[in-house]
Every structure is written in structure tokens, then in C-alpha cells.
């Protein structure tokens, strides 16, 4: 047990920190094209696709190096690059399951941000139960004809391509009739409608497909193996988010401490009120524990261990923690926490990170509600922990009973 950073890591961090000091944009990024330029700069510095194999343009960087870059970016509130899903999910899928032609065509562009990708998985009636998806891709000569709707598509309006899961065999059981297909987002019949969130912003879209013709060559892997491909997607980003999450929460807490030092309640500074001290002490402790847990995870990753279902513990931990922390921050700030404009000296967006991305207390608060829903709700994570980590038997569920009955019927028919 030795929780010091290695000399190599310390030097790497210094290098990264120096780069950001020099290169951090001096003004706010406004357009998507400006952000693409910034991405290209990050790519040239070696901070994009860090975990990718070298032969496809990556760095084969260690998890700790990825974590350090993430942490340093969060520390200075650096703008994010583009094509996050493309690099974390689409690229690795192509590397593992794509043809040589698919790889040659897309991988480099994907990494440099020339080609932006989105992920077309979720549907209105397939939330936690993704495998029940209904969007169809019917084979018609050399094409798939796609019909249906996708939802919660992040960055759809900026994307050139989408990685889709679609049903290609409607008679097969729900997991066995799904294929993984690349779709061009400007094809006729594709319509993107931004979806407004309760924050008032539109990070996601609905995407509608009406008789969209896609070349059969756009199939990734074998027909009807899409579910397996999606489930086994191997990310090369190991640990990249672990410390940046902590770092973002720490930035929030730093600002909270400043505000609590300025805000005077009936002549006393908020920070001198024992009740408020307890609340801040509690959040601070929880964030420290998240940091320790992240270091523990990184330490495993550095040894090449792959956290499988244990990742659910981590997801549950940080998403629920964020929700608790933001509730407590709101308690401390009172009406100032809910102000979207005009909060003056107590605002979050007047923090000492002037060139990064603006934010408000209210926006952070609203978004803390999303973390326990997206990317596997807390309920789903608890199921995974219960079944795959603790070894509890699966719950009895309608779809499992149906499956069982169908199997019995098939067996009976075979007799």
C-alpha cells in the first residue's frame, strides 16, 4: 500500500499542467467549430484517445496518465473536446468488430474530430430495458431500410454519423435479433429534434428514421449479433473520468467555501454557523471518500485489472453523492442557489476560472438529478451489484418467465 504518485506521474502532471497554463483558451468557446479547433489542439498534444492502440492513432497511455489529464482539465475548468462518445464507444467498437475498410475510413477522422459520432441506442419504450428496442432495419437488396425512433441521443445535431442498434430479426428472442449499424446522420429520412431538459438546455435529441436506406456494408460484425457487440464494447479509456469527477466537485466546494465566507446571515458569516459547518464538513468528507475510492480504482486499473460489475458500485456512489451534495449546497445557499441570473457576488459562474465553461448553482443542482437516471439508473446498478457482485439470484420477472415459456414450447414442438 503506497498512495504516493510515482515520480513519472508527478512529472507527467507537471507537463500537462504547464501545457494547459499555456494553451487554455483565453476567451469563451462559442461555436462548435471553435470547439473542434480546440479538440484538434488537445489531440496534437496527445490528450485525445489516450488509451487507444498506437496503430490507430492513440497513445496507449496508462490509466493514471489518462486520469491525470482528466483531473488537470477539470482543475482549470478546461473546455471539453468534441466527439466524446465517438472516441469512447464507437472507435473501440470499430477496432474490435469493424472490417479493415471500416477502420480505414473512420478511425483517424473520429479521433481528430473530423467525424463526429453519436450513439443511437435508447428508445422511448426501451429505457432500462434496452434490449426491448423496436427500431427496425429491414434488409432490402444491398441496403438496410431503417424505420423507428431513437431518444436521448447526445450531440445528434452536430454528428455526421451515428452508431445504431436496430432490430433485424423480429422473430428471434429480444436479445438475438439486434444488429449494430453505422448510419449517416444527413441521410434522407433522418430527422433530429432537440429535446429540452428540465435545466432548460438541450443536450439530447430525439432522432426519427423514415425509410432511411443504409448500405449493407455499414453493418458492424455479423448480422443479429448487435446486442453482444454493444454489451462487450471495450473502452480504451480507463480511469479517464475517475479523478476529473472529484476535481469538479472540489471546484464546486472551493467556491462554496468562498461564498460561505462572504455571505453574512444576520451579521455572522455563514461559515461560522455550526450548522452550516456540519453540512460543508459532510459534503467535503464525502468528496474525499470519492477521491480515495477513485485512487483505489485507478490502482487496480494500473495493474491491468478490469473492474467489471464493481464499476456499478462506483457509478452508484458518485451519482448518488452528487445528488446529496447538490441538495446540501442548496440548503446552504438558500434563494441564492436558485438564482439563474442576477446572483451577483454569490454566483457560481463568477468563480476564479474565468476562461472555462460557465455554470450556475441551479444548473449543477438540476443536472445532479440526471446522474442517477442515465447510463443505467441507480435501480439497475443495484440489480447488477446484487446479482453480479454479491451473487444473489436474479429476480423473477415477466420477460424471464416469457422466455422460459417460449423455450418450453419450442422444446415441446421439437418432440
Amino acid at each position, binding site marked *: 500500500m503506497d498512495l504516493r504518485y510515482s515520480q513519472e506521474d508527478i512529472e507527467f502532471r507537471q507537463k500537462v499542467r504547464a501545457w494547459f497554463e499555456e494553451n487554455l483558451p483565453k476567451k469563451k468557446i462559442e461555436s462548435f467549430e471553435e470547439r473542434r479547433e480546440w479538440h484538434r489542439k488537445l489531440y496534437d498534444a496527445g490528450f485525445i484517445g489516450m488509451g487507444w492502440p498506437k496503430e490507430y492513432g492513440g497513445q496507449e497511455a496508462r490509466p493514471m496518465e489518462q486520469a491525470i489529464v482528466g483531473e488537470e482539465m477539470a482543475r482549470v475548468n478546461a473546455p471539453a473536446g468534441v466527439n466524446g462518445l465517438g472516441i469512447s464507444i464507437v472507435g473501440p467498437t470499430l477496432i474490435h468488430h469493424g472490417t479493415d475498410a471500416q477502420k480505414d475510413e473512420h478511425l483517424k477522422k473520429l479521433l481528430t474530430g473530423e467525424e463526429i459520432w453519436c450513439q443511437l441506442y*435508447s428508445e*422511448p*419504450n426501451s*429505457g*432500462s*430495458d434496452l434490449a*426491448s428496442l423496436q427500431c427496425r432495419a429491414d434488409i432490402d437488396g444491398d441496403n438496410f431500410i431503417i424505420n423507428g425512433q431513437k*431518444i*436521448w441521443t447526445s450531440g445528434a445535431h452536430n454528428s455526421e454519423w451515428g452508431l445504431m442498434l436496430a432490430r433485424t430479426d423480429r422473430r428471434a428472442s429480444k436479445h438475438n435479433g439486434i444488429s449494430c449499424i453505422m448510419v449517416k446522420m444527413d441521410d434522407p429520412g433522418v430527422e433530429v429534434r432537440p*429535446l*429540452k*431538459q*428540465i435545466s*432548460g438546455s438541450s443536450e439530447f435529441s430525439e432522432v426519427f428514421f423514415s425509410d432511411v436506406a443504409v448500405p449493407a456494408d455499414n453493418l458492424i460484425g455479423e448480422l443479429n449479433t448487435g446486442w453482444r457487440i454493444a454489451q462487450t464494447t471495450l473502452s480504451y479509456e480507463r480511469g479517464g473520468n475517475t479523478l476529473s469527477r472529484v476535481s469538479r466537485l472540489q471546484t464546486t466546494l472551493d467556491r462554496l467555501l468562498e461564498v460561505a465566507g462572504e*455571505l*453574512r*446571515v*444576520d*451579521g455572522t458569516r455563514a461559515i461560522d454557523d455550526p*450548522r452550516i459547518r456540519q453540512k460543508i464538513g459532510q459534503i467535503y468528507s464525502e468528496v474525499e471518500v470519492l477521491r480515495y475510492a477513485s485512487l483505489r480504482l485507478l490502482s487496480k486499473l494500473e495493474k491491468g485489472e478490469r473492474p467489471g460489475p464493481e464499476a456499478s458500485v462506483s457509478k452508484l456512489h458518485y451519482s448518488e453523492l452528487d*445528488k446529496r451534495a447538490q*441538495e446540501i449546497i*442548496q*440548503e446552504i445557499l*438558500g*434563494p*441564492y*442557489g*436558485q*438564482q*439563474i*441570473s*442576477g*446572483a451577483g457576488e454569490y454566483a457560481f459562474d463568477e468563480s476564479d476560472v474565468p476562461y472555462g465553461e460557465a455554470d450556475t448553482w*441551479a444548473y449543477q*443542482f*438540476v443536472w445532479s*438529478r*440526471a446522474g*442517477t*437516471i*442515465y447510463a443505467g*439508473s*441507480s*435501480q439497475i446498478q*443495484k440489480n447488477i451489484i446484487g446479482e453480479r457482485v454479491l451473487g444473489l439470484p436474479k429476480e423473477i*420477472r*415477466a*420477460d*424471464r*418467465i*416469457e422466455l422460459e415459456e417460449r423455450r418450453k414450447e419450442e422444446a415441446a414442438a421439437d418432440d
Partner: protein
Amino acid sequence: MDFDFTEDQNMLRDLAREFLTEQVSVAHIREMMEDETGYDKDLYRRFLGLGLIPFPEEYGGAGFGMVESCIIMEEMGRIPYPGPFFGTVILAGQAIIQSGDENAMSRYLPDMANGDLVVSLAFLEDSASWTPATITATATKDGNGYKLNGTKRFVPWGAQADVLLVAARTGEASGPDGISLFAVQANSDGVEATPETMLDLNSRTATVKFSDASAELIGEEGNAWAGLDRAIQRAAVAASAEMLGAARRAHEMSVDYAKVRRQFGQVIGQFQAIKHKLAEMLEQVENAHSAAYYAAWALDADAPDATLAASVAKSTANEASRHVCGEAIQVHGGIGFTWEYDLHFYWKRAKHQEVFYGDSDYHRERVLQEVLAGNVAR
């Protein structure tokens, strides 16, 4: 011992619910979010036209007490209604009534009751707290009237009000003594209102700056605190009822959704994770109901534990509505996080009212003070 509503109270609820559900459509609520004024004056007048006004009858009201006020506010929370009813009729209305100043009552209440006058109470300052020490705005005698100076924050519908009731000091520098209540015409010189955008876009507030603004005294000079405290207490209980309405509606939507939304071949309400959440939410909603209406009754009956009950009601409604509305989003999953789905209305309205008229910390402290002072029911 009868905890049920009277027939008159049930009729009042039906009347309010019928008007609000029929007249305040979701489209209207969304429209008002973008509207500069933030509410529809005609609609507001028409609601007041129903006559459901908790003012004394001699001033254009229906003689309603706090129980009736809570019924109306619960129904408004179920919509939730965008407009200055709470700010004018409950908050400012109570500030005037509790001042005991009959001149002020006859001058303002009838016009507030028919919708000619939107009035608000400018109380909070920078420290955003509800104790006497908060008040640092000052008023100095000037001929027959006063000149008022100071900055008030988070004034409900402060940019839309015709008249602002302002708590300011005419005497000592802190403490309850020396606080007076004034009426200031919003369009007079030296009054500058800057709207604040809040999380709940339908709950409008403003920062109002007073620079030598002409002010008219309400009640006795230096003796306004007791009345203000009573008014804020009543506002807290009415806000509790509004939060109760929001929470109950969010819970109902969640139960309905859990009965139809299918995942893994069954409706999600069959999963214990969802079913048990919905059961816990019901318990909290029912507790908020018991607490809000007990407090309303205690205030109306001038019971010895009325202040205690008011604080119990607000802290209970704060915690219950926060939990229930938050869990409602979780039960809904992704759809609950969309702007198009109405659930966030309730979550945001409840969150808004949570921090006004005393947050949970404030009211828990006050509960203890009342208990130590022996102001309990036993």
C-alpha cells in the same frame, strides 16, 4: 375532534380546482415562463372573481381563515399556478391584516381582492434570513411621510407589484424593536426593481432598491415586528399547503406512470424498487397534509401551539416535497428529465417555496424555542 373538511370547505376546494384545472392549461403555464410579466392579469382577476379571498368580509373578502387559505394554495400547488395570488393575497394581505391598521386594510384590501392592486412584501435583504436582524433598510421621517432607503432581495412579484410593503428600521439597529412597516408606490421616484430569474421560472422575484423613496407608515412606528412575524408564519403555512399540492400531484403522476410504463415485460410499478418508493412518498405526502392543516387550524383557533405547529408544518412540507418531487423524477426516469413533461413544474415550485418563509433549519430551531418556552398543546 374532526380532521375532515366541512362541506363548505370541500365546495371551496372543488370550485378552486375546477377553475384552475380548466383555466390554467399546461400551455398557459409554459407561455407564462417566457412572458415578461409572467402572469395573465385577466385570468388573475377572474380567479379573484370567484370570491375565494381570505380577507375579512368588510374588506371584500370571504372571511376565510388559514384552513381555507391552505385549501386554495394546495390547489394552486397542484397546477402550479403562475401568478401573484400568494404574494398579494396571502403574503401582503396578511402583512396588512396582521398590522392591525384598519386604515391600511380599508385602503388596500378591497382593491387587492378585486385584482386592481398587486401588492407584495419586501422583507428579505442580503442575508436572506427571516429574523429581525435581517432588516437594515431605514426610514426617516419626512414631513407627513417617510423617506425609505435600502435594498430588498427576492421580493415575490416585486417587478409586477403596484404597491410594495416594506419592512424597515425607524429605531434600533437590530432586534425586533424599531422595525416599522411601510407602503411604497412602486412607480414612485427612488424605486428600482430588477427582476431575478429563479429556478422556477413561474415564481417571479425581484431585487428592489429604494433611494429616498416616499413611504407611508402602516401600523405604529417601531412596533411592526410582531405583526410581520405573524404574517410570515401564515405565509409559511400557506406555502406548506402549496408544496403539499405540488408533492401530491407529482406523486399521483408517478403512480399513474408506474402503472403504464413497461420495462422487462411488466409495468414498473410491479418492481419493488418503484413500488416501495411510491409507498414512502405517500407516507410523506400524508404527513405534509396532516401538518399543514393542523397548523392552519391552530392559527385559526389561536391555539397555544400555533407557532410551534406552523414551524412543524413548514419543515415537514419542505422535507416531504423535496423528497417526493425528487423521487418522482427518479421513478419517471429519462422522461421525467424532459422540459416537455410537466413533472419539473412541481419539483421547481416546491424547491422555490422551500427556501422562503423559513427553511427547515430555521423552523427546527423555532420548534425548539417554542417547546422550551412551553408553548405546546399538552
